């Protein structure tokens, strides 16, 4: 599926790595970036667009690199390592949806706009989950040759900073379809809050909101989208967990108690060894998730993707907790990066459904 060469993809990631080292240091630049107002793209965004990241998974015909899930993983790993807060994953996943579900004309117009950074998108899929209420969804009605949306969507990331939403809404016959919605209209109300990892997140309410249906010939690509998304999150967890493991080893080397470095204590060395073992399981989860994106059978795709999420979330969460524990009090402060890696992991667990959703999927219960 990918037309980008491995060498090109690797050199893109090298450039990204350098960019993040220079311009997204944890102690200062990242702090300034996350202080951005909710309706503004972070300062690093322009550099990411210039690097070509918004076109990574856009076909060459529309001005992109023609990258596939493996390339997406490579980038996501770097973003996870540097704790980048940006709408990039939502944009990349939207490009995947458009390629599968939009018409040829829509693809031509939208994908090139995405690649050039002229259009930014966020996915709006999750139903809202208020206590004591059934999940509220969004419904689509045909009207005057176009479409109108009514209802709710939750967990819409960076909803105030993007130009459009890609909404999964229900048709009157119960089937679901994708719609592109311009956020700059009265019918789109956003109630936003900030997640623990500093991502802006919104509950969106559509009231007679104007929408364009993605009217390609293909079916709604729910399974394929989930597979690509799991692959991306598994890769991000690898980047985050690797960073936390490195920080931990560096801390254990320097921190002295009872006249020796913490890293000289066998009990703590064993813990690091266990983290390294979990790290390998996590890397394998990243591979499984990539295999899932290429699976032809839906059942096989579900199985591989869910196994990847189960082992990935479990391993990464455990590594992150151990990283905090081995940092002692330091791990409990907002000043140190380890805590932020754990916060991001909690958000990934929640957005993907984590181990519970994965087990449910494996048991065939959803």
């Amino acid at each position: 599926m990918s037309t980008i060469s491995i060498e090109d993809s690797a050199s893109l990631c090298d450039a990204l790595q350098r960019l993040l080292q220079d311009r997204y240091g944890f102690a200062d630049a990242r702090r300034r970036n996350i202080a951005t107002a909710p309706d503004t793209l972070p300062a690093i965004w322009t550099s990411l667009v210039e690097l070509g990241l918004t076109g990574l998974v856009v076909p060459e015909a529309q001005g992109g690199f023609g990258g596939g899930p493996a390339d997406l993983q490579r980038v996501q790993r770097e973003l996870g390592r540097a704790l980048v807060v940006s709408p990039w994953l939502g944009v990349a996943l939207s490009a995947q949806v458009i390629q599968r579900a939009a018409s040829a004309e829509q693809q031509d117009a939208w994908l090139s706009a995405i690649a050039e950074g002229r259009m930014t998108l966020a996915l709006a899929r999750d139903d809202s989950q208020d206590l004591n209420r059934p999940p509220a969804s969004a419904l689509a009605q045909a009207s005057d040759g176009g479409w109108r949306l009514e209802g709710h969507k939750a967990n819409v990331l960076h909803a105030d900073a993007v130009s459009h939403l890609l909404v999964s809404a229900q048709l009157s016959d119960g089937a679901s379809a994708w719609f592109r919605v311009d956020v700059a209209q009265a019918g789109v109300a956003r109630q936003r809050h900030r997640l623990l990892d500093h991502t802006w997140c919104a509950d969106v309410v559509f009231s007679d909101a104007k929408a364009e249906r993605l009217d390609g010939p293909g079916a709604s690509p729910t399974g394929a989208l989930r597979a690509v998304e799991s692959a991306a999150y598994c890769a991000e967890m690898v980047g985050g967990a690797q960073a936390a493991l490195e920080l931990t080893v560096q801390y254990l080397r320097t921190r002295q108690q009872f006249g020796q470095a913490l890293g000289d204590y066998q009990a703590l060395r064993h813990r690091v060894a266990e983290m390294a073992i979990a790290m390998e399981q996590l890397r394998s989860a990243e591979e499984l998730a990539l295999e899932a994106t290429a699976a032809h059978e839906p059942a096989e795709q579900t199985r591989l993707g869910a196994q990847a999420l189960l082992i990935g979330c479990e391993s990464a969460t455990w590594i992150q907790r151990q990283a905090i524990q081995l940092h002692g009090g330091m791990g409990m402060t907002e000043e140190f990066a380890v805590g932020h890696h754990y916060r991001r992991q909690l958000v990934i667990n929640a957005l993907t459904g984590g181990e519970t959703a994965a087990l449910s999927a494996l048991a065939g219960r959803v």
Partner: protein
Amino acid sequence: MKQEDESLQALRAEIRAFLATAFDPALRARLRRGEFPKRADLVAWQRALNQCGWGAPNWAREFGGTGWNDFEQLVFLEECAAVCAPAPHVFNITMLGPVLIRFAAPEQRAEWLPKLLNADVLFCQGFSEPGSGSDLASLRTAATRSTDGEGDHYVVNGQKIWTTAAHYSDWIFCLVRTDPQAKKQKGISFLLIDLNSPGITVRPIISIDGRHSLNEVFFDNVRVPASQLVGEENKGWDYARFLLGNERASIAGVAKSRERLGYARELAGATLQNGRPLANDVLFQARVLRLEAELEALDRTQIRMLSDSNAAGRVAGASVLKVKGTELQQRVQDLLVDISGTASLRLPGDSGFGPDVREPLGAAHLYSRAASIYGGTNEVQKNLLAKHVFDTTP
């Protein structure tokens, strides 16, 4: 329910009735959501307890305490935890009071114990230092004794860290080095220091949950009257060990974990998934049932440990309770965020947490990661426990 004799049952009923009327439902709601109590909450509650004679469950009667044994204290703490009521002030009552009762001069006891009981002052604890965490005895904050025209006093210089509640406390009990020449445990003294003294700076540490409960406390030539030394000079390490051994009745947090688990059940009952309450989900039930069984077992472990007549056994038992208790506390906290989705993972806005009751759960979860770090990390506890097992195994 475990077997309890009639007098414990009667006490339990009496405490439950008191809590039903005396504990403010609005405060309960806040604490149940996972928020921290404020200073005013702690003061008002300590005074309410003191008024009915329950201000110090772990002190002898002659000093204003209840004179309860370990089991009666446990019943009291369990009942408080079941309704999210704060325990008696941990620094004043659980930690400092017993040290003063055991080691302080009669005048010092007469001066401080009534104030501690009635929360006329709130103390915090100044033990950890940047270079002295697990290796606490390596602490370096120095107190130099001298006498000038204004009397016998210490001059204190140094820094404490991870000082919970220092920003709203009045006084701090500190371990300080009074004899730099002595072997490290031998040169430490136990001082009471007014946080309003000139030369003290309290600086906030924002923790992983984005909230402020921890602080650094800096001492720059702080003058402390020698009358604020507790017990004998250079015996502070013994007092600190005595103090840390006094948390047995609360260390496992079984009742708190049970309360959180009950809350998880309640939230799961109110969360609809595919048209059915999450509480009916078999995966959710499996987690809850396993945790309930673990807590039931730990409860019996705790009773056995409290009944142990062997002093070394009780110390080792405290390590068992700390490690297992905090592991279970954290697993319950994992469950709470797992069932709450992103609703529990929001940073508080300028006006605090929003109306969704799940919002503070993420912050509470993050803060619970400290449970296996503070009060002696679980790694240090395991070292102590292993030593005990090797020493006592024939």
